[in-house]
């Protein structure tokens, strides 16, 4: 405070003195322009060095600094993305001097600050592997959750949208999957605070879940950095093993208040419609199968149609078996006529044209003491699957107060409310059922207007109408900090973060589709708070030795508390709250879980002549998830960097403007398993009104951290003053002591227990290139990134772990030594025998034979591990063109060389017509006569095909997708000025516009399973809903 008073006093005094002395100052004015385009640069800073005098250019790019003391000065002009320019000027008292600055673009952006764990760093000094995501490029892509737009934007970061549900979840893998059972999702840190992520909606019947990250407004994000190697992650030690995504929200800058308004609106459709049999095709093929299997007469076929499609009492009442032959024949003819003329497209009933609207407005600015950013947004998305909606309203206030020159404090606060209307998909119903079990020969309605077979589970229209589900979420994400520079070079920072998620799910299912209506009200609170203290030191000695050091501690605590109330049987259909249900049929439950991490960490860096950079960090972490003697883990890292272009001997190579060689090593930890896994547990239950307990979990006091050893070597380079810039990385990650379920015989009373065993290796190569092809009036930039990753399980102590073992669904993925995690165990399909029309398989001895039903071990004998759910390489190519105010962004993503297993194929394309599943239209090519060469076998009424897991349904999942196309127009500055605006842009964006793939299902971008099982069960579809393609127009205004 004393400092502040002294400062203010000094300021006032000098003003007074200067006024009193009279004309001892002059005025400096001029224009700042862009060298490449010749256009003026509004918002550039012009500062007289060594003083606090300075200003920013106005909307016309001109500046005026009055009151400059007479004499010689050095004036510096700077602008983000441009290289600084300094000029010497001589001010004469009472006169005005005009000095113009021409800035050239800083193509390498080497001085750009990059956010790292607990701090920031100049890009040129970074010696670990960090991807900075070009946030500007993804800003206008309509999405309900920001992380989905990261796809193809950072080398080595694989992003898969799980499905096309609005508000649905996204799977992200940074440098492959390093774990079998514990989570492989990265850690997300927003403004320094680890935030709540994950999928919290769990109401049964809705397997696709909400996404906590969709509660972050993408418009508020200033930058996203992804820490990819252990050296970068190690400072988050315990939490960093799967990569860290650092999100920084927008902050205010000194100057006038700036407003930013954005509005966009558009519609969406499914990327692809699957070709399935229509009514007459279905009847034709089903009859063929009926005849092929010798099941009986054609009348018999119609009579057996399920769900009461064949109405025995259509003409006559009474017991069918008591009918006369004439009555039976008449009934048959009448039924046949109706059935032959029924063609219901169930999928069409489940799809629609979606729409999305987004609007956001923010104000930012500040003065020397206070800077602020205040923003609000509203977004409303209606998905392509009927009933699926997502609505979000959010607000954010970021403030920073400079109390004194040395002390600043601030607060970042974001509050979001959302409403997510989920729909069952896949095996759970809805669109999944519409494709498969809803037969095209079933009508939607009976003649009297009531639903046809509403309780069969296959009338998806009745199901949709009879069901209500909504998840309401409110989240608060705040952090408060103070930063005190208590001595030159030293600063102390205190951060306190709080992230709350309150979620309420309501479900009601009525009596049209079930006997008793049922309702659920489920409430969940997640509290995540975090406190950290850090002490930083930064000093350069003799202009040669730069030393940076940091040490600190953090404590993070997470609590989850929930209650759920279920009720059945309501006295009146207007009541939908479970408390109104029959009191004997009400089931409340509640749960609570906590975890915490306590960590101590430090980091030091030394740079010599900004040429050689070495750094090291260490973190000591304690986790509540491990037993008393195993809680603590220590995670060190070290890096070296050599900027060759700083060496005198490199001066002659003028083409190479920047070249950095870097290497890193580090160890990170993973404890992303459930809580209390080391304790032996009994659950509580009841039987016939008496309380009971049962064995739930076998103890393992030895349970400890899963660790990853990571090595990375890389280069960063710039050619021709940065016209072409890029980098390459090679990495090797060895994860050991994997946290996984050790499978034990069920005769022990348990299936498994959590143990540390096994080893997984990921290694890969990453390349990213940025080329500024044209830089003058016509600008053209190309960004390319490409990555490979090889995943191999080195050791699992002989265990073979299936998706089922780790709580996933079917899919026949396994984790097995010597293979990538999630490879399939399948029998190799050879083809269809042209002579008999049956499927042939390659046996373990190499011979070819049909499936042998009589051998229960046929699958185990002849299956082998095959396929790879991971691509050979993946990445993105972005082209950005700009001319005379028009801009065009064309952005492709690609995934090459992975396989996708269509787990639904055996039911959906197997030609087993007696199963009452509709089939893909591909079976129209079925084998019919000896000599037919086809890959679709002879149709059968009751075949064993549903038990066959073979490579027949393993598809190449490669694709090239036009992920987004943006076309915009920015009004020229003279017009903008007339409108009193700073910038006016209108744009059109389309996403998922076009895809090339050989994949036979809906969409090759699939990820059926979620949570822990997704490490093993991946790249599998089971009637999974497709992605959406969107078309949007938007307007953005800055003023």
């Amino acid at each position, binding site marked *: 405070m004393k400092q502040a008073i002294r400062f203010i006093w000094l300021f006032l005094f000098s003003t007074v003195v200067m006024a009193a002395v009279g004309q001892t100052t002059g005025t400096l004015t001029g224009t700042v322009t862009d060298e490449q385009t010749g256009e003026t640069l509004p918002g550039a800073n012009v500062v007289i060095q060594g003083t606090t005098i300075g200003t920013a250019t106005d909307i016309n790019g001109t500046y005026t600094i009055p009151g400059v003391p007479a004499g010689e000065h050095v004036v510096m002009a700077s602008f983000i993305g441009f290289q600084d320019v300094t000029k010497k000027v001589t001010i004469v008292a009472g006169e005005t001097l005009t000095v113009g600055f021409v800035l050239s673009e800083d193509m390498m952006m080497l001085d750009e600050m990059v956010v790292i764990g607990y701090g920031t760093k100049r890009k040129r000094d970074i010696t670990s592997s960090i991807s900075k995501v070009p946030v500007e490029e993804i800003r206008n892509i309509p999405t309900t959750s920001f992380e989905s737009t990261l796809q193809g934007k950072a080398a080595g970061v694989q992003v898969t949208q799980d499905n096309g549900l609005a508000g649905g979840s996204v799977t992200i893998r940074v440098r492959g999957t390093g774990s079998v059972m514990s989570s492989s999702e990265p850690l997300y840190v927003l403004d320094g605070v680890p935030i709540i992520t994950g999928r919290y909606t769990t109401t049964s019947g809705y397997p696709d879940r909400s996404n906590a990250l969709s509660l972050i407004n993408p418009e508020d994000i200033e930058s996203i950095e992804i820490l990819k190697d252990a050296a970068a992650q190690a400072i988050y030690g315990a939490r960093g093993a799967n990569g860290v995504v650092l999100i920084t929200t927008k902050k205010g800058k000194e100057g006038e208040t700036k407003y930013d308004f954005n509005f966009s609106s558009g519609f969406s459709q499914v990327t692809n419609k699957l070709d399935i049999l229509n009514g007459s095709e279905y009847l034709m093929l089903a009859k063929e199968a009926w005849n092929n299997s010798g099941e009986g007469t054609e009348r018999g076929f119609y009579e057996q149609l399920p*769900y009461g499609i064949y109405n025995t009492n259509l003409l006559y009442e009474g017991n069918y078996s008591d009918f006369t032959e004439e009555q039976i024949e008449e009934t048959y003819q009448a039924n046949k006529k109706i059935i032959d003329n029924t063609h219901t497209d169930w999928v069409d009933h489940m799809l629609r044209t979606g729409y999305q609207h987004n609007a956001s407005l923010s104000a930012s600015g500040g003065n020397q003491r206070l800077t602020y950013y205040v923003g609000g947004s509203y977004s409303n998305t209606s998905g392509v699957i009927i009933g699926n909606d997502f609505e979000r309203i959010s607000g954010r206030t970021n403030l920073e107060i400079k109390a004194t020159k040395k002390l600043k404090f601030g607060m970042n606060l974001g509050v979001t409310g959302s409403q997510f209307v989920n729909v069952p998909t896949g095996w759970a119903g809805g669109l999944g059922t519409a494709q498969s079990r809803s037969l095209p020969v079933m009508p939607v309605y009976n003649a009297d207007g009531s639903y046809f077979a509403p309780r069969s589970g296959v009338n998806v229209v009745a199901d949709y109408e009879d069901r209500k589900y909504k998840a309401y979420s409110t989240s608060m994400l705040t952090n408060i900090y103070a930063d005190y520079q208590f001595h030159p070079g030293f600063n102390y920072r205190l951060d306190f973060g709080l992230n709350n998620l309150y979620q309420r799910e309501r479900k009601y299912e009525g009596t049209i589709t079930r006997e008793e209506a049922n309702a659920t009200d489920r409430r969940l609170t997640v509290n995540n708070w975090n406190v950290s203290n850090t002490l930083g030191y930064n000093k350069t000695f003799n202009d040669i030795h730069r030393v940076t050091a940091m040490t600190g501690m953090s404590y993070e605590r997470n609590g989850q508390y929930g209650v759920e109330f279920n009720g059945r049987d309501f006295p009146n259909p207007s009541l939908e709250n479970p408390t109104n249900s029959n009191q004997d049929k009400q089931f409340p439950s509640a749960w609570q879980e906590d975890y915490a991490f306590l960590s101590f960490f430090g980091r030091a860096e030394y740079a010599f002549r900004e040429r050689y950079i070495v750094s090291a960090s260490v973190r000591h972490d304690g986790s509540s998830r491990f037993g008393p003697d195993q809680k603590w883990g220590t995670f060190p890292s070290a890096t070296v960097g050599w900027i060759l272009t700083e060496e005198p001997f490199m001066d002659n190579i003028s083409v190479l403007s920047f070249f950095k060689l870097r290497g890193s090593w580090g160890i990170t930890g993973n404890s992303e398993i459930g809580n209390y896994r080391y304790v032996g547990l009994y659950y*509580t239950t009841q039987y*016939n009104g*008496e309380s009971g307990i049962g064995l739930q979990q076998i103890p393992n006091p030895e349970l400890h951290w899963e660790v990853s050893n990571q090595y990375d070597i890389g280069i960063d380079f710039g050619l021709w003053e940065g016209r072409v810039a890029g980098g390459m990385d090679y990495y090797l990650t060895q994860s050991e002591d994997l946290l996984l379920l050790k499978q034990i*015989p069920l005769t022990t009373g348990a299936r498994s227990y959590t143990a540390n065993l096994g080893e997984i290796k990921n290694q890969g190569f990453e390349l990213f290139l940025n080329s500024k092809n044209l830089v003058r009036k016509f600008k053209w930039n190309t960004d390319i990134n490409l990555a490979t990753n090889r995943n191999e399980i080195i050791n699992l102590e002989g265990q073979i772990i299936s998706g089922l*073992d780790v709580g996933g669904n079917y899919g026949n993925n396994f984790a097995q030594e010597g293979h990538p995690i999630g490879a399939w165990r399948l029998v190799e399909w050879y083809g269809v025998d042209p002579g008999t029309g049956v499927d042939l398989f390659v046996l373990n001895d190499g011979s070819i034979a049909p499936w042998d039903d009589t051998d229960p071990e046929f699958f185990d004998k002849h299956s082998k591990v095959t396929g790879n759910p991971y691509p050979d390489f993946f990445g993105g190519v972005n082209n950005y063109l700009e001319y005379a105010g028009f801009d065009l962004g064309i952005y492709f993503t690609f995934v090459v060389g992975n396989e996708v297993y269509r787990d639904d194929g055996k039911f959906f394309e197997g030609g087993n017509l007696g199963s009452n599943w509709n089939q893909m239209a591909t079976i129209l090519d079925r084998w019919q006569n000896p000599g037919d060469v086809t890959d679709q076998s002879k149709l059968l009424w009751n075949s064993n095909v*549903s038990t066959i897991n073979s490579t027949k349904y393993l598809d190449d999942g490669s694709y090239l997708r036009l992920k987004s196309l943006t076309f915009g127009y920015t009004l020229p500055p003279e017009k903008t000025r007339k409108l009193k605006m700073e910038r006016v842009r209108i744009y059109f964006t389309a996403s998922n516009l076009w895809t090339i793939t050989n994949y036979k299902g809906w969409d090759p971008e699939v990820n059926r399973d979620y949570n822990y099982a997704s490490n093993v069960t991946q790249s599998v579809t089971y009637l999974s809903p497709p992605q959406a393609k969107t078309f949007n127009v938007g307007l953005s205004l800055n003023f």
Partner: protein
Amino acid sequence: MKFKTTYIAALVLLTSLLFTSCEKWIDFEPTTSINSDNALTSTQGLQTALIGCYDRMQSGDLFGGYLYVSGDMLGFNVKKSGEYALVYEEIQMMNRNMSPDNRIVNSMWEQAFWTINQANTILQAIPEVKDADIEANRDRIRGECLFIRGLVYFEIMRYWGNPNTGEAVPLLTEPTGIEGKPSRATIEQVYSQVIADLTEAAGLLPENNNRRATSKAAKAILARVYFYHKDYENARLMASEILPIDPSTTQTDGLQDDVTNIYHSDPTDETIFAIMGNTADRTAGTLNGCFRKASSAKFSPENTLIKAFIFTTGHPDSVDQRYEKLFTSIEGKIFTTKFDDLDMSVPVIRLAELYLIRGESRLNEGDVNGAREDINVVRTRAGIKPIEGTPTYNDFYYERFKELFYEGDYFHNVKRLERTFVNPDPNVSEEIPWNSRSLLFPIPQREIDVNPKLTQN
């Protein structure tokens, strides 16, 4: 310099404060489960763990459903109704080509061994408990554990026991610990253990036990075990210990006049032991889903069952109430109504079965009159004509078939009699011998994967 020192001192102090108590900051105990260290250290702990065993027997993969329905799927006793789709593990059973990863087979194994292990864990823990309540409860708790173990072993042995090799399932009488990798015991070893368990249980259990295992229940199951072990003398003796009367007298036979009374939440006196169900705990959920029309029944009765009622009633005028009351015709299709009560308790053993056990045992022993008296008790209640001459084995076969349909008896009875399963589809000629491998439950593949001592069936 001075202020800097002060600050650093303060920070160091702050940090060291954290160190002193940090272990507490990261130490949480679960609040919604019980730590296994103290789960079974009191009488209350033993008692609640015992209740947990009954709770597990309710599972849809045991008495709640598939323990009964699997045999009917394998043995041509049900057909697809077309009301609701079958899942593929059911389709495998209907086609008699169960793979070693069949989910029903795997889950039944898991639920059965979970229950057996918990019973064994309690048995092992009983001597350690020394609190005030243990004296009054020790024998009963031990008896119930033995009853549960005996019953579950008997039931799973019937599905996995391979008559061609004599091998059954691993026989465990104490917890194996997580390293335990037992091999399969023989059918005979399992039988002797089951008989020993149930015999001891019968001596320890009380007369009444809040709808849980009683001495009578243990004896009744024991009668069934002897009967299936073809030890007809002991089967008869054991059944006679329970059957309320000698049917030659005019005393009440203990059976319900109306058969539909049996299949409700509150078991009648005819039911000796049932797995309890009620509104809150719908034990019969899987059975409802399989058979109940209003629950979109997956299955409808196969024609052979319908024909058994129509052609074997004895004379044309009699009306079999088991057919009249336990079947219904809806929209021209026949469904059973046996499992129509959503809240019903699932009968495990009833007096009617004991009459049939004793009757057939007597027939085996040459006591024709006794056999006739017993079978006629069941026939009379059903409302059909009593047998007048010498009852045949076929009479007993059909009576069991009709009396106990979908109650988990038919499939095993055909195997006991070493008869042949015949596909009733007139278009298909398929006969499957009683000991066919296709009728045996495979040992779950994941179990063989983790326990090399197990051999596939």
